[in-house]
């Protein structure tokens, strides 16, 4: 039979149940074989970078929550570290450990969501329920730590929102048990599951050289056998003092990516356990430069010398309940007037409120000399970088976020062409596209 080969177009998205977010794929198919594919993104473009330009340095943090909303804490940490690098300050040891703990909790939630959603899209709803159960315990832990389940806004320039809650280690141990249980249960259901393996093995394959050329990082790159991890190559926070392995794959297909993510969950839990063992005492945010009695500052303020408020920390009586907490010996106006006072001080005494007000008020807040810098952390999907430009005012002149999942998305043609239409779903799942981060 001499029939001319005919192709047809199929549109997937922008709202499709097996798409993790809003993205549109236009597939050109010949039978069930994919001949060509084009991706249309930007359906969740929310102008993060534009907003950041009109905010103060600290006020950008809530926006970073919503970049990769599956691992908000990593974004918070990444942004805060980038600003601190530009300002030339470093957070105390305890703060660094807290940041590692926060990042790793988020990494686990990220991977749990990714694996769970992929499994659900392939028909394994049970696994989704198990893993989301594990994630729920982590969300409750995050709630305990930061006060919010998802939009955490945990970091500040120069520190974190607050110290670990006193029962954090104990709570974490219980949560880790639940998460490990959920992971091992799902692992038993998936890892050697015939259907699951058939759909994942050999699909969405990319070679090492291609992955590098496309700028892919994170678990996606590691699945091709490249052990590149920002935490190891450019250790930030406390990662150089902690022991962890970098799981790598061999073939660079969807199955390898699944295995990499599964192994990383365990590594992240191990990292948190080590942190809780090693975490030193001390302050979680920057030290105040100098402490004066509150009445001295008050008097000076009455005389019109408001500059003192920005320069010194006030020592106040521990009569208010908020002040009796151990980590709050006094209202702090810490190093170079950069760090926001603790919430308890802001709400409990006038000096804290004043200090907070000064730092958040337009043109009064943190100022960073004109400069330019780039800093990256290992996000859930790879290298999450922030390129910051300061013009000397109280807010960024430009914030550029390097979204790690943009790069595998741009390689979608490489990943899908030649495969079957059924491969779209697992491949898309393993890219772990998070629209908030992809479109910013």
């Amino acid at each position, binding site marked *: 039979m001499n029939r001319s080969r005919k192709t047809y177009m199929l549109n997937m998205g922008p709202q499709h149940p097996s798409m993790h977010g809003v993205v549109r794929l236009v597939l050109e198919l010949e039978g069930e074989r994919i001949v060509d594919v084009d991706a249309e993104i930007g359906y969740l473009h929310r*102008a993060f970078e534009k907003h950041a330009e009109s905010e103060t340095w600290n006020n950008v943090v809530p926006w970073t929550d919503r970049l990769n909303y599956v691992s908000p804490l990593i974004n918070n940490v990444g942004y805060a570290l980038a600003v601190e690098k530009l300002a030339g300050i470093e957070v105390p040891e305890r703060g660094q450990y807290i940041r590692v703990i926060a990042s790793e909790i988020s990494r686990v939630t990220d991977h749990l969501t990714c694996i769970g959603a992929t499994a659900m899209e392939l028909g394994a709803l049970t696994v989704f329920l198990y893993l989301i159960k594990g994630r729920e315990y982590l969300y409750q832990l995050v709630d305990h730590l930061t006060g919010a389940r998802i939009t955490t806004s945990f970091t500040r320039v120069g520190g974190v929102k607050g110290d670990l809650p006193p029962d954090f280690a104990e709570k974490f141990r219980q949560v880790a048990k639940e998460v490990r249980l959920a992971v091992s249960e799902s692992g038993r259901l998936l890892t050697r599951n015939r259907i699951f393996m058939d759909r994942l093995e050999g699909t969405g394959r990319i070679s090492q050289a291609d992955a590098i050329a496309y700028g892919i990082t994170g678990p996606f790159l590691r699945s091709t056998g490249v052990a590149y991890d920002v935490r190891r190559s450019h250790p930030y926070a406390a990662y150089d003092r902690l022991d962890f392995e970098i799981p790598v794959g061999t073939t660079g297909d969807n199955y390898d990516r699944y295995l990499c993510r599964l192994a990383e969950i365990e590594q992240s839990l191990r990292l948190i356990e080590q942190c809780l063992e090693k975490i030193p005492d001390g302050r979680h945010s920057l030290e105040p430069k100098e402490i004066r009695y509150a009445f001295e500052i008050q008097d000076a303020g009455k005389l019109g010398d408001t500059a003192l408020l920005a320069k010194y920390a006030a020592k106040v009586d521990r009569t208010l309940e908020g002040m009796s907490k151990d980590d709050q010996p006094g209202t702090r106006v810490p190093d170079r007037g950069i760090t926001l006072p603790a919430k308890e001080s802001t709400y409990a005494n006038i000096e804290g409120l004043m200090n907070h007000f000064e730092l958040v008020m337009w043109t009064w807040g943190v100022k960073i000399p004109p400069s330019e810098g780039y800093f990256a952390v290992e996000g859930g999907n790879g290298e999450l970088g922030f390129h910051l430009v300061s013009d000397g005012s109280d807010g960024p002149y430009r914030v550029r976020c390097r979204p790690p999942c943009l790069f595998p998305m741009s390689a979608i043609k490489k990943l899908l062409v030649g495969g079957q239409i059924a491969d779209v779903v697992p491949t898309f799942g393993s890219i772990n596209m998070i629209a908030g981060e992809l479109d910013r």
Partner: protein
Amino acid sequence: MPLEGETVPAGVMTTQLDAALGWARKYSIFQYPFVTACCGMEFMSVAASHYDLDRFGAGFPRFSPRQADVLLVVGTVSHKIAPVLRRIYDQMAEPKWVVAFGVCTCTGGFYNNYATVQGIDTIIPVDLYIPGCPPRPETVIQGLTLLQEKIQKTGGGRR
């Protein structure tokens, strides 16, 4: 049942039928989750075992708008996706209800910028607003029970 535009006074039969329909509909919500952003994470949490939307008869997502009767708009709606949302709403069969899940869908939230729709009620009618960024599961469940009350009241589907 009186047809639209007719002025037949509501009799015992019609009110009883409306009540029965409302009762049936409120406990078998077929939702269409129009998930775009962060709120989707919280929606997953509500739908999964811990909070279990299924207890309220709303655990069954239909990913075809023609089979769904509640459109859950979960997450920021940008101007680029707005026509899609409108189209999905138009494709849904009556009776239909719309839930704005999360503050972005209610008012635009803190995304007051060139890319974001300032509340989906500028595009489609909304029956219930669930605020929060994202709303906590408890808020969602409360919202759902409120929606059920509304469905009970407007059971025949005439809005």
